[in-house]
């Protein structure tokens, strides 16, 4: 038999990542109790190495490998670069937190890297099975990460809930995929589009399959009514893990939607458009209304995530590259803001004290005016007030929605974001208008200091000069379609 080895070049960064995960695990095994930082450093090196590899393989051309199951296009490269950067920032932000709480172990890093690998595979998948493998790799690593503090009741409960509901969602997704396979006879995303276009398949079965796929996607995006897991998981997981769950996987989820709905089933736009409208409106309603009632900051941010995911889905509704690029811009802006916000929460944590409640922000401007100012920028940005980046994200999505003729949807979206503004303002109110309850100093290490300042500043600076990021999102989409 003549065996032709596949072209490994497009998947070089994934392969490198896989090798390095093993290296991290082994290194941590041999390193002693007081050399735990070795795993941390190796993880950061891995991410840098992946960045270099992805950067080197960057080209405007699309290359496929592994019999067309794996694709490397400019959207994949850009999303992966974003993922590396985000994961690296997550690790810098959480280092002090995890070492304070006895989580500075090899498992944490290897799980994070496995999850990252899962995201990379999802982003580059051009076959249902690859997509599913990537998704499961990500999900299983996340379940384990949430349960990392196995002595914490609330974390274990969150992990159970996450796992059970996540498995259900994966089941939905697989069921939907099998329906689609039954109707079209292919699992290749690119062939799928052609078959649907040629109308050689049974429309009814396809639509049923589509419904299940959209349900699976909504679960992963935490869009209402499939959002139930998000508040509990956000609250229950250690804040460092919440930061991770809330940030980098959003890029993967974006890639997931693009590969499945747009590239695979783009011809069925009339069918999924209506579903996304309902999901978007429900998410914005549930997210914004429920967030008002929260006293726990992580829970509040979970609901805020739900509402933001609703806004993000609006970007897909217009079903053109203008809309997709605005959705991508929205994800980038959202991840930037989430990173900063959770980093602030971890900054307020001390040894033996978890900052969990909104009231922990009380009087922050008197304790440390610089971090209060950064949080102010982040909150106004989340609320979508110019000149912060969150406004341009909303603007570009709204523009796409109005362009598609859904003016009423845009009106609903802005009304809900008005409600949303209230709970972000409440944080600002606590920071600036109230007296502090404690005068513990806030003492981050110098990396966090620099990164957090840069993060807050980026929210403002990218808002004043949004052109580069908008151009990048448009480039990523247009080059891959």
């Amino acid at each position: 038999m003549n065996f032709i080895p596949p072209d490994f070049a497009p998947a070089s960064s994934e392969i490198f990542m896989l090798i390095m995960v093993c290296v991290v695990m082994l290194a941590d095994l041999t390193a002693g109790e007081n050399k735990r930082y070795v795993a941390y450093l190796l993880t950061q090196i891995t991410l840098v190495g992946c960045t270099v590899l992805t950067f080197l393989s960057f080209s405007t051309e699309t290359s496929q490998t592994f019999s067309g199951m794996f694709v490397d296009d400019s959207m994949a490269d850009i999303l992966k670069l974003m993922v590396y950067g985000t994961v690296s920032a997550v690790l810098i932000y959480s280092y002090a937190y995890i070492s304070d709480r006895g989580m500075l172990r090899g498992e944490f890093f290897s799980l994070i890297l496995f999850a990252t690998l899962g995201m990379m595979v999802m982003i580059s998948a051009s076959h249902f099975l690859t997509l599913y493998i990537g998704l499961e790799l990500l999900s299983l690593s996340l379940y384990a990460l949430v349960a990392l503090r196995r002595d914490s009741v609330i974390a274990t409960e969150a992990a159970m809930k996450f796992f059970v509901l996540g498995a259900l969602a994966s089941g939905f997704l697989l069921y939907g995929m099998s329906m689609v396979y039954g109707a079209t006879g292919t699992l290749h995303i690119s062939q799928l589009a052609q078959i649907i276009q040629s109308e050689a398949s049974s429309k009814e079965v396809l639509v049923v399959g589509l419904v299940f796929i959209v349900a699976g996607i909504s679960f992963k995006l935490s869009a209402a009514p499939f959002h139930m897991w998000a508040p509990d998981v956000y609250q229950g997981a250690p804040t460092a893990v919440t930061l991770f769950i809330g940030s980098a996987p959003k890029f993967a989820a974006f890639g997931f939607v693009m590969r499945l709905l747009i590239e695979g089933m783009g011809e069925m736009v009339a069918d999924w458009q209506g579903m996304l409208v309902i999901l978007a409106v429900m998410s914005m309603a549930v997210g914004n209304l429920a967030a008002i009632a929260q006293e726990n900051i992580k829970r509040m941010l979970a609901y805020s995530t739900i509402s933001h995911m609703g806004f993000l889905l609006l970007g897909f509704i217009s079903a053109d590259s203008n809309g997709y690029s605005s959705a991508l811009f929205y994800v980038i802006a959202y991840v930037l803001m989430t990173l900063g916000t959770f980093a602030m929460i971890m900054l307020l944590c001390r040894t033996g004290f978890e900052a969990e409640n909104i009231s922990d922000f009380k009087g922050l401007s008197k304790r440390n005016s610089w971090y209060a100012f950064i949080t102010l920028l982040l909150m106004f940005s989340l609320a979508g007030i110019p000149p912060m980046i969150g406004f341009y994200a909303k603007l570009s999505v709204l523009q796409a929605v109005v362009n598609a003729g859904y003016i009423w949807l845009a009106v609903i979206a802005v009304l809900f974001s008005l409600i949303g503004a209230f709970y972000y303002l409440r944080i600002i109110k606590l920071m600036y208008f109230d007296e502090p309850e404690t005068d513990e100093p806030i003492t981050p290490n110098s990396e966090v200091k620099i990164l957090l300042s840069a993060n807050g500043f980026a929210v403002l600076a990218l808002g004043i000069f949004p052109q580069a990021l908008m151009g990048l999102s448009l480039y990523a989409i247009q080059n891959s379609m």
Partner: protein
Amino acid sequence: MSFEFPLLSLIIWLPIVFGIAVFVTGDDRNAHLARWISLVGSVLGLLVALPLYTGFDSTTSTMQFVESHIWFERFNVNYHIGVDGISMPLILLNCFITPLVIGAGWEVIKERVSQYMGAFLVMSGIVNGVFASLDAMLFYVFWEASLIPMFLIIGIWGGPNRVYAAIKFFLYTLLGSLLMLIAFIYLYQTSGGSFAIQDYHQLAIPLIPQILIFVAFLLAFAVKVPMWPVHTWLPDAHVEAPTGGSVVLAAILLKLGGYGFLRFSLPIAPDASHFLADMMIALSLIAVVYIGLIALMQVDMKKLIAYSSVAHMGFVTLGFFLFNSYGLEGAMVQMISHGFISGAMFLCVGILYDRLHSRQIADYGGVVNKMPTFAAFFMLFAMANAGLPGTSGFVGEFMVIMGSIKANFWYAFLAATTLIFGAAYTLWMYKRVVFGAVTNSGVEGLEDISKREFALLAILAISVLWIGVYPYPLTDVMHATIDHLLIHVNNSKL
């Protein structure tokens, strides 16, 4: 001006840069430095704005001092700024008020001085940006950004109920502006991808979309003006805000709403403006008459002036929708003059509040015995607020009443009642606070105004009298622009 100096950009960004410099001075150990930097910054801001007036060509209605650069190409948004006869006086008013506000907080603000002063400077620059923007998106960014400093000013340095007032102020204004954003995006689509305001002026839009656009703009601007019945945030915000905040709110931020009508609603949706003019006039007259009556019953001085602001701004919106040159020019004069008068009135109340820490009318009485100089100034401003001839308050109101007689006798009749109500509530308050015998030991211990306060009030007094006696320099610059606007609005787009 013949040479290409970015004067307008300087007017916008100079106060913002100084504001940031003031923030950098840090905590209250450097309070003195913060005060001086902000004073220098605000005075410089006024000085660089003066060439705007001297270099202004009042014979043309085209935009002047124009600067245009690409801001972000993705949505064809430009950094496009310029002024005409409507925006130029408002920018000058803003630059003029800022040093006074800094002066008003000089000794009174003792906590977080640098943040207070810095916030006012930044806001001054942002407001200049609102008035100067010729690109809808740029306008929107400045418009919304102006909420942030005011929100903090009310919330940090305000009175006991400041949190409620600050959040109400923010959410009310945000509601209006978000719908305006949708209108902008709609106009962006219909104009084929342009955010230039002047392109929108030429856009032919059918009546129904025009009405929807008008309503979206109306919500944004009516909340800012504020018009009845969306005025309820204003008394709360005024009462809780520190003196400087009240002055800026009344003198400057309310004008943003009026300016919005002139720059957006009327020229972009002229047919809808005519179609809905009766409703707008009715709302304005309700503000004039009904809010005037409410003002009569107030026991809190700041609330009384806040309601009187609503009534006076009712005159402004009335003037807009008469569609004749008396009405429009009168409304513009009224906006400028209200900036001086309401600013001065709030300063006067602030001066009393700094001494006795009460805004209740009942806590005063016989102030004239202890503060004669102050009483004299307060008298002048109270008279101006009541619209006495010879003060700036008279000019605007008289012009609008003239305009309304042309339109309909009953409009004029109802509008003219303000001369009675205005006199009644202002002078009655004045009588109870200032005249009579000294009523309590608090008043007994009052000291007359300091040199700093004297200077602030004197500057405002001169301005009020000047416009009252000789308004020509003001009306001259706006004449050509208003005529042009009037012709434009009276031409149907259908």
